């Protein structure tokens, strides 16, 4: 699940930012939370329409892609901040990405009121016809006296507050699924053309994509630079040869597919038969429909459409390659500088040597019969708990290493108690 967190204060130091950062970290196994800053946007001015600016368009895209939005509002003068109001005005003027979007309101303030008035104003604002968001009712989360609320690691100190926040977010995730049922057509993504019959700005026209010599034929059309010609990159200058050397040195097989679903490149280091994915130079240029067996096409389409729509940033699929290997096909969405989808970086990596190396270096062991080494290790590293892999199974339920597979079911079974308990108490 992908959520967007809006930091509703333009202040450099904001406890609302801290609250969202805490949520992002604490609930990392339940959803991805991307934070948006109101301070990065211009103040709304209807006579200087900047809807088409990169900043507003990026924001628009992110809101549209998100399953839900969490707004953390500060309170200034009994209402929300000008920065947050301005963001909402941009998103209700010429574009309306918040329409029908599930929204959770939270807020913290220095004093007891904890943004109570600002939150009520915000509810009225979200309900206006130009915004038309669907704010979750009830479950008011006010964090008063915020200066005392967090410990030095940015964690909420108070157990009851943590439990209540957890219950609120659990409910919000359910609320999102309920709200999405109001509009069943919403999640139907456009079909993907695996035959690449369309084109994108970089498509080389009038060359037979399925030709065994596509690279040579396309090169004759566009005369690409090669060899010791310099290319300027973000950030640096390399020759084409150096780029090639760099890509070939990567400890994985890497493939580039453009936004038109055309296979344009792979790092050719081995003979086809020695590769995890048996890429051949003559396949380059093909529509990806030609590179996958027909039985997989529906699945391939599904993954690409979700990457294109931003429902997923990346997709990871383990593929068995015999004992002593843990090979994962990773599909990472690519975006141009304006944030538009521009294709896929598929990299195929054997994680086993990395895991072995890590265990050897740290002296740690994998324990438990069914520890999912890959997801466990990578997830744990991001929360900076060096002992996470070995001790994770004992951790509380917000940090289960098997979160990607089983935790969500487990949590939803436990949750009814937690929710009713918390709401009664508060």
């Amino acid at each position, binding site marked *: 699940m992908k959520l967007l967190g809006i930091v509703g*204060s*333009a*202040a*450099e*130091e904001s406890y609302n930012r801290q609250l969202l950062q805490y949520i992002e970290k604490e609930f990392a196994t339940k959803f991805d939370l991307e934070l948006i800053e109101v*301070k990065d946007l*211009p*103040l*709304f*001015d*209807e*006579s*200087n329409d900047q809807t088409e600016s990169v900043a507003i368009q990026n924001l628009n895209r992110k809101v549209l892609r998100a399953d839900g939005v969490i707004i953390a509002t500060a309170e*200034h*003068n*009994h*209402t*929300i*901040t*000008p*920065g947050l*109001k*301005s963001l*909402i*005005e941009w998103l*209700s003027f010429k574009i309306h990405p918040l329409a029908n979007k599930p929204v959770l309101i939270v807020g913290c303030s*220095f*004093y007891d009121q904890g943004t109570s*008035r600002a939150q009520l*104003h915000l509810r*009225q*604002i979200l*309900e*206006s016809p*130009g*915004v038309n968001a669907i704010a979750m009712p009830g479950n008011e989360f006010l964090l008063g*006296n915020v200066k005392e609320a967090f410990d030095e690691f940015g964690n909420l100190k108070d157990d009851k507050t943590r439990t209540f926040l957890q219950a609120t977010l659990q409910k919000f995730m359910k609320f999102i699924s309920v709200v999405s049922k109001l509009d069943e057509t919403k999640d139907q993504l456009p079909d993907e053309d695996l035959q690449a019959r369309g084109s994108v700005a970089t498509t080389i026209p009038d060359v037979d994509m399925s030709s065994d010599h596509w690279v040579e034929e396309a090169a004759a059309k566009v005369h690409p630079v090669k060899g010791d010609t310099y290319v300027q990159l973000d950030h640096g200058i390399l020759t084409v040869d150096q780029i090639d050397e760099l890509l070939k040195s990567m400890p994985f097989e890497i493939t580039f597919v453009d936004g038109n679903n055309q296979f344009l490149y792979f790092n050719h280091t081995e003979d086809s038969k020695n590769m995890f994915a048996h890429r051949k130079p003559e396949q380059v240029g093909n529509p990806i429909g030609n590179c996958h067996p027909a039985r997989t096409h529906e699945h391939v389409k599904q993954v690409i459409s979700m990457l294109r729509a931003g429902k997923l940033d990346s997709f990871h699929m383990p593929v068995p390659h015999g004992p002593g290997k843990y090979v994962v096909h990773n599909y990472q969405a690519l975006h141009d500088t304006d944030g538009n989808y521009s294709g896929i970086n598929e990299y195929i990596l054997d994680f086993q040597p990395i895991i072995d190396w890590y265990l050897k270096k740290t002296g740690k062991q994998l324990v438990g019969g069914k520890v999912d080494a890959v997801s466990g290790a990578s997830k744990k590293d991001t929360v900076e708990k060096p002992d996470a892999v070995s001790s994770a199974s004992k951790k509380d339920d917000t940090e289960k290493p098997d979160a990607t597979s089983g935790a969500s079911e487990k949590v939803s079974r436990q949750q009814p108690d937690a929710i009713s308990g918390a709401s009664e108490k508060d």
Partner: protein
Amino acid sequence: MKKLIGIVGTNAANSTNRQLLQFMQKHFQKDATIELMEIQNLPMFNKPTTDKLPEIITEMAAKIEAADGVIISTAEYDHSAPAALLNALDWLSYNIYPFVDKPVMVTGASYGALGSSRAQAQLRQVLDAPELHAMIMPSSEFLLGNSLNAFTEDGQLKDATTIEKLEGIFADFLLFVDIAKQLKNAHAANKKAAADFDWDKIK
């Protein structure tokens, strides 16, 4: 003659709220001088850590401080006052307190039929906050709906009943300004409360 400030409660280049204040400025010129104050081109309020406020803000604050009263004419975006107006008010209550016990009349114009009713209701709550603490004239709602069609080409309000209502409220406001001068018993305490409202010392 009373000196009033009329704050154009939007940063839009074309605004019927500006038109409304211009109309009032002219229509009531025998009773009061109304100086229009714009809130365009202010930086976004970001709770700066330095004490030094932008010069444009301190100039605005000085004018408000010197005025007998303030008229705020608000537009309505998304059921609430424009970000630009909230922005101006945040600046004008950050370590400076020109609005404390200042008589304020709220008006508003909108293109739709409701005439900024909800923005005005929120604005009244905003003006009641400790650091603004304006003396808002009660029971005086003036809503100008369908405002694009409300004025003649030379800026006159077309509807006689609307003018009559505005004249009544404005006469009351001038009286309210006088009454407000007598309601000063708590003024020193209010100023102090506003100044003590320190973000860093709040318990």
